[in-house]
């Protein structure tokens, strides 16, 4: 099964998109396939939600068939949703761009959250 890796970003600029510290309220998501190609990117509509931004964002990723996701921190609800959908959660260790964090993931440099 091919993997799809989701990165929360604060601006959309392809691989150079700066990574967003937060998950639920990030500006957008960039989704890579295993070869580092960006297969999808979209603005995170949930960031405006008063509550439940985490569940909304998670729901979006699940809908898009994401298998792996990285964030500075996953809230409890987001974790619940993603784990139930068998999405692997990874901890961000201060990479600046989407490209950087993808490479770290690819090279097994990330810790599981």
């Amino acid at each position, binding site marked *: 099964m091919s993997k799809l890796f989701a990165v929360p970003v604060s601006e959309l600029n392809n691989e150079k998109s700066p990574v967003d510290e937060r998950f639920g309220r990030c500006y957008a998501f960039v989704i890579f396939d295993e070869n580092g190609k960006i297969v999808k990117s979209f603005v995170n509509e*949930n960031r405006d939600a*008063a*509550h439940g*931004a985490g*569940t909304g964002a998670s*729901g979006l990723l*699940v809908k898009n068939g994401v298998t792996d996701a990285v964030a500075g921190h996953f809230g409890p*609800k987001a974790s*619940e949703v993603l784990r139930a959908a068998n999405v692997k959660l990874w901890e961000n260790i201060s990479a600046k761009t989407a490209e950087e964090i993808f490479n770290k993931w690819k090279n097994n440099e990330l810790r599981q959250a």
Partner: protein
Amino acid sequence: METPTKTIVVASGKGGTGKTLMSVSLAGHFDSENYKVHYIDADVEEPNGRIFMKPENLKSVPVMTQVPEMKKDSCSGCGKCQQFCAFNAIVAIGSKVMIFPELCHGCPGCVAVCPEDALRMVDRQIGVITEGDSGNINFIEGRLNEGEAMPTPVLTELFKYIEDYPGIRIIDSPPGTSCSVMKSMEEGDIIVLMTEPTPFGLHDVKLASELALKLGKPVYGIINRSDLGNSDEMKKYFASRNIPVLGEIPFMRDVAVAYSGGNKDMGNKFSEKIAEIALKIRKELKI
């Protein structure tokens, strides 16, 4: 003597200005004048009226809201429920849905849009209404369970619960100017705003006054700890909005001490102040 039914809402902008102190004291005073009195604690996130009222013979009624649940084990996972929900409370994962009850606002939208009729709404408890006696005073408290985010349904139930209660109803409202406060103010025949003569008190009472006046209610002010700060500025503000000041209560250390220990017997000087205020309220309410 039949007491006509009247509701006094005690509110404030800033916390810690003496809402509960005033509500409890007024309740005690009207009771001593043989009115039928109900003390209602509407600060459902942190109800502390019972520390002073010490109610007995308690009985409780749960406050329920509604949340969806799946009728069957699996569904097509189409996600129409997730798409509809404005609160991110339902997520489609594979062949079923995940529900977050604490995010759900209780609208049956997901049930309505599900093309397979796979969902139904069921009851969920989010709080409790407790009633008891505090001497002759009837005590009613609304309480939101810890961890719950939405106080509104508890308030709605609380006010429905006391709808037909005759006599003088004193509602001890939450601080601030949020939705909960507005709901409480709507119940009142008059709104009494507690404040203190500091810049914080002034800033916040302006917000609370604006809200009360917007609701078209008769509004009155009481300045607590009136000798600690700038009372003149406070009175000037009230005058500018045609808000009568029912009383100014100077700081009384023994009152503060009694209050801190949960004691509602505040001594003679304070009781006199309460009597003055209560008389003015009776005049305004025509009772």
